[in-house]
């Protein structure tokens, strides 16, 4: 029976929730994301309280530019979409296509992360706006940095799953893993939408 879990092929309609373990994981992860929501809500609250507290350092309108951030938003939103494709193919039990779309997702995620690093470097070098510049700086880098760390973790997660399961294909044991990784990725995406709105858009207006 245990070995059945690792057999690919002949999967039920929702392989990610077909077993008790899978359904536990699925539900537990939703709750975990609830906790993560509070975590980011707290960070947003802190940022909102400190967004004008730039002391001697540069203020929001001095540093933020929408162009780059807009591209980043598009990239991350697209990656969310590609991960939806991946999950669609998982439900159709076509492992190869799922891997392909996950690969695209990872590539987009890497691009996003690259842009983010570039953005931070740009702020530090061109505006002397760093983590220690002011309370605003600390709040900005902490909020956006937490998100960036989540993105990085999500990428490592995807990559690990893809490599680990590349040869053996989809089964009841790893389907929930793929599924919650993609849930996590959607969550990161949603958080970014809020960051884009609260940090950048509201910073420009």
């Amino acid at each position, binding site marked *: 029976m245990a070995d059945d879990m690792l057999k690919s092929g002949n999967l039920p309609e929702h392989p990610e929730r077909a077993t008790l373990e899978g359904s536990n994981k699925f539900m537990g992860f939703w709750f975990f994301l609830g906790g993560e929501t509070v975590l980011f809500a707290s960070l947003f609250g802190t940022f*909102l*309280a*400190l*967004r*004008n*507290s730039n002391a001697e350092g540069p203020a929001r309108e001095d540093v933020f530019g929408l162009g780059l951030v807009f591209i980043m938003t598009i990239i991350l939103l697209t990656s969310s979409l590609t991960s939806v494709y991946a999950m669609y193919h998982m439900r159709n039990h076509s492992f190869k296509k799922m891997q392909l779309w996950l690969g695209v997702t990872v590539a987009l995620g890497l691009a996003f992360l690259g842009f983010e690093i570039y953005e931070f470097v740009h702020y530090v070098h061109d505006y002397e706006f760093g983590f220690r510049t002011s309370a605003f700086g600390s709040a900005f880098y902490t909020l956006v940095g937490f998100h960036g760390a989540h993105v990085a973790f999500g990428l490592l997660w995807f990559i690990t799953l893809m490599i680990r399961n590349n040869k053996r294909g989809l089964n009841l044991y790893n389907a929930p893993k793929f599924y919650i990784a993609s849930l996590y990725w959607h969550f990161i995406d949603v958080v970014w939408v809020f960051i884009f709105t609260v940090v950048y858009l509201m910073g420009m207006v």
Partner: protein
Amino acid sequence: MKGWMSRFKAVFALAVLALILSGCGEPFLSALQPRGDGAEQIFQLMVLSVVIMLFVFVVVMIIYVFVVIKFRRKKGQEDFIPKQTEGNHALETLWTVIPIILLLILAVPTVQYSFEFADVSPETTAEGDELDQIWIDVTGKQYWWHFEYQDLEVSTSQEIYIPTDRKVYLSMISDDVIHSFWVPSIQGKMDVNPTGNRNEMHLHAQEEGVYWGKCAELCGPSHSLMDFKVIAVSPGEFEQWVEEMQEVSEEDVPESETAQDGQELFADNCLACHAVGSSPNKVGPNLTSFADRVNLAGVFEMNEENLFEWIDTKGEDMKPGNLMVDAPYDLNEEEINNIIEYLMTLSPGEINPDSAENGVYQDSDLSGLFPEEEEEGEDSEEEEDGDSEDNGDEEEQESEEDSEEDSEENSDE
């Protein structure tokens, strides 16, 4: 079974004791013996809530005692199976609704007093004229307090003189960590936060006296030694005290020669941090009326021995963690004694803590302290955003009031 009975007795005895205890504590410190308007209002609120709560407690205890005695399993009842009651809607509604009513009774004065304590608008006379406001800037520091009387050019540390029968307004800020200003017998406490928002409150002493104030927010090792005094004197005496304080200058020369020597030493070694006479908030306490102080450093008996130890050891063991230990001075025994002699001459005039306890009452409307009353501004809302401290926190409302205060101050000059 006996144990149960005796415990109920104990509980009731304690409840009775509670009533007796309301006269407990020392009148200069206890919130149960209010000597100020704020403390008295809170005391009424306390009594109201205790009465409501005792009512609930008594109801609970009556049911409890009855149930525990009546329904204990008796011998021979081992096989008795009680009726398995699911609940009772009428009862459940009853004990939902009654508490709600009781809480509403408590909520009304709570909200009312919350707003009253936050109201720092001027007092008015019976005719509706606004009285002058005495505003005191309070600064909390590890582990002492500094007080500056706005517009009056008077500053003190550790002891704050206020007139009785008059509201005195405080605007409070901390120089380092969070402190909390509490004079239990006059008024409840208010936190003293570092920058950002100045908290405001008012004191209104009903009787003359020397009241103890405490720091109520953990602020470091000597948190428990950060006491201060509120010295409430009659309005006339207060007016006299202000005038006496205004005349003090650090150039005043004491009579005795050793004291003069002490003054020089004081100037060389101490004035970098301390001050005599009106001064802005400095590193160390203002010593203008030092010789009149009730206590040394807020808590120690005021005598030359303690003072010697303080100067000699820089208070290292007397107030652990105090910042004077970093003072660079190095004085020998004779020099310290000369400084002490000088310090003991620092008594600006006749009004001192004894004035609060000698039974003399001089009335005054304090108008002498605020000579040129500029014409009442028609537009009470002065639109001057002089205060650039925009912290983006929820206390903006208060700092706005504060900046109004500042601008009025400026126009006085």
